[in-house]
């Protein structure tokens, strides 16, 4: 069995085999165009204390959440042609979680130690349906070759890898509403198995007409990202570990205030929780994963001990 410093660092001494380990969150972002994050938090949290920093991240996050058609203002213009809204939203979330300035490109040498776990269910359905409708109406020659990569459902994960140079394992999770919880589960495995020193967990869903019709209800287009490393990493914002029963502060359900992001909701909630711990003074926040199987339905995000 392979062993590595990463795996050893990720395991707590004395834990029984099989119990998931603690991970460090070293970056996070919430990218929900049009959502009122500060207002939503006001509804579930005590009024912010005065002084700098109070809820300021939520104000900044709301302001920085450009809609997908304006992603060039954040990401730079080059390379966005034919990129779908969910892919753009995912790129924006990763860009911000890495702390890059507007227009800054971070693609120096390839990073084989960095894995990508992306979650999306409806990201490419608009393009897929557009392709088959075009073929039906005008024939196959009328389809743009630029749409080819999006016929494959891993377009979000592979585009994030390509854009930022993340050359480690690349996983695209399409498991419905449970995708966010599954994504965190897989990210933990990649670290503990020594497959990656850093995992960029990102989730995005669009709200285009095809996606909404398939979903059968209103969607909130948006994305979230958390950067995960073995516990003890420098620049740790918060830690995430399996939740013990009965620890809820504030309630996880209250975090679903920004509309239904479907497969992106789990990672968005995780990123909000990390912000609350790192910048709002919350000691711990429980995040539940709707649709997750028994044993990994909730995690606890807390300040580093």
């Amino acid at each position, binding site marked *: 069995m*392979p062993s590595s410093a990463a795996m050893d660092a990720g395991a707590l001494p004395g834990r029984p085999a099989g119990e998931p380990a603690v991970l460090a969150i070293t970056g996070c972002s919430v990218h929900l165009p049009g959502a009122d994050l500060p207002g939503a938090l006001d509804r579930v949290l005590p009024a912010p204390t005065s002084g700098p920093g109070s809820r300021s991240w939520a104000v900044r996050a709301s302001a920085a959440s450009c809609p997908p058609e304006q992603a060039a203002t954040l990401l730079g213009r080059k390379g966005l042609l034919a990129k779908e809204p969910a892919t753009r939203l995912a790129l924006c979330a990763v860009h911000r979680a890495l702390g890059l300035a507007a227009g800054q490109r971070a693609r120096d040498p390839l990073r084989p130690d960095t894995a990508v776990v992306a979650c999306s269910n409806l990201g490419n*359905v608009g393009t897929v349906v557009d392709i*088959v409708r075009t073929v039906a109406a005008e024939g196959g020659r009328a*389809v743009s070759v630029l749409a080819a990569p999006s016929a494959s459902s891993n377009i979000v994960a*592979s585009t994030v890898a390509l854009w930022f140079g993340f050359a*480690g394992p*690349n*996983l695209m999770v399409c498991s419905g509403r449970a995708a966010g919880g599954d994504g965190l589960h897989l990210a933990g*495995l*990649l670290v503990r198995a020594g497959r990656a020193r850093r995992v960029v967990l990102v989730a995005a869903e669009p709200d285009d007409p095809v996606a909404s019709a398939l979903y059968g209800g209103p969607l909130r287009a948006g994305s979230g990202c958390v950067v995960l490393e073995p516990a003890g990493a420098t620049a740790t914002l918060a830690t995430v570990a399996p939740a013990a029963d009965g620890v809820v502060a504030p309630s996880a359900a209250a975090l679903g205030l920004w509309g239904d992001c479907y497969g992106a909701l789990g990672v968005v909630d995780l990123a909000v929780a990390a912000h609350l711990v790192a910048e709002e003074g919350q000691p711990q926040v429980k995040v539940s994963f709707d649709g997750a199987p028994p044993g990994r339905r909730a995690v606890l995000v807390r300040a580093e001990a």
Partner: protein
Amino acid sequence: MTALIASSSVLTCLGSGKRTFQAVLDGRCGAGPLRHARAGALNVTAGYHIGKDDPERLFRARTWLVRCVAAALRQAWIDPRRQRVAAVVGTGLRELASVEAWALDPGAGRQPFPVDRLDFGAAVPGVADVVTLSNACSAGGHALAVAQDLIELDVADAVVAAGVDAMSRSMLAMIGRVAPAPTEQVRPFDADRTGVLLGEGAAAAVVVPEDSTQAARPTLGRLLATGLSCDAQHQTAPDVDGIRRAMSDAFSRVGRAPGEVGAVVAHGTGTALNDPAECAALKAEVLAAGADPLITGVKGAVGHTSGAAALVNLDIALRILSTGRVPPVVGLRRPLPEGEGMRFVVGEQARFEPRRRIVQTNAFGFGGVNAVTLVEAA
């Protein structure tokens, strides 16, 4: 702790795993006319279909997956009610074919679509922990990697690594869009190859820990490692360095040498770009280390089964280990110049000797996602 493959169940256009292996040994090709309605508009005329039913019937992939998973669990003597069982399902195209049928229906929008059936979360009876990984043409290999991690980290007692894909019209359209002329048959590593065709397929393998209780239980082979990498170079074109990283990752994870490889079940898609890149990577990582493996591949016989392809390759690898026979590359007559010096199995089956050597299987996908698996006799 290492992991074992307790069972493997496969369904391709040529039938079960056993039938498929025999057909490939015999050099048979399962390609036939593409049966989709209005196929002419797609510029794709051939495909590798399972059965005789309508290829646009809804949720076909799910029925194949359920069948393979149930068979694999049964053959492995695994009871999900009594053991911690998880499943990882790899798929390139999910049930997008059903989404397309829904969208092309004039009544689309009026009929609700069961969005929870776009993935395979509920498709593994008796198993609650099911993750759907949509990792393009190497999805099954990624599922196998995660399955081994779950076993080695003792998160589960048994993990079903599965893969499945039907054909989507959108993927057929893109294949037709970039092909100068329709391809009749996939011809991996042939100098005159004309491109890829899709194959319908499903596969499931059960991964279990190698421990003292295993002696009395079914075992098909030892799962040494699956190496993973992402090229991060190009959206669709393969990259030799990225493929090499997946290969070296596999060997270093298990601490074995590439010189031990006795046979390779290659990805071999018969496209202009894949086959030379795969040859270059094999030469640099495996042949350069002193190995001179027999090289085979099955896509000429069963088409590109996308999400199932890595696990179809795994099944072939396990049968090479158990029978000592390496099937020929169906569709290969004259190897490509980039493959000079490589021992492709052409025309007739070859002997796999000595039997203790490693069999390597390759799977690469859109977006540069690579999975390389190593197995040996248990």
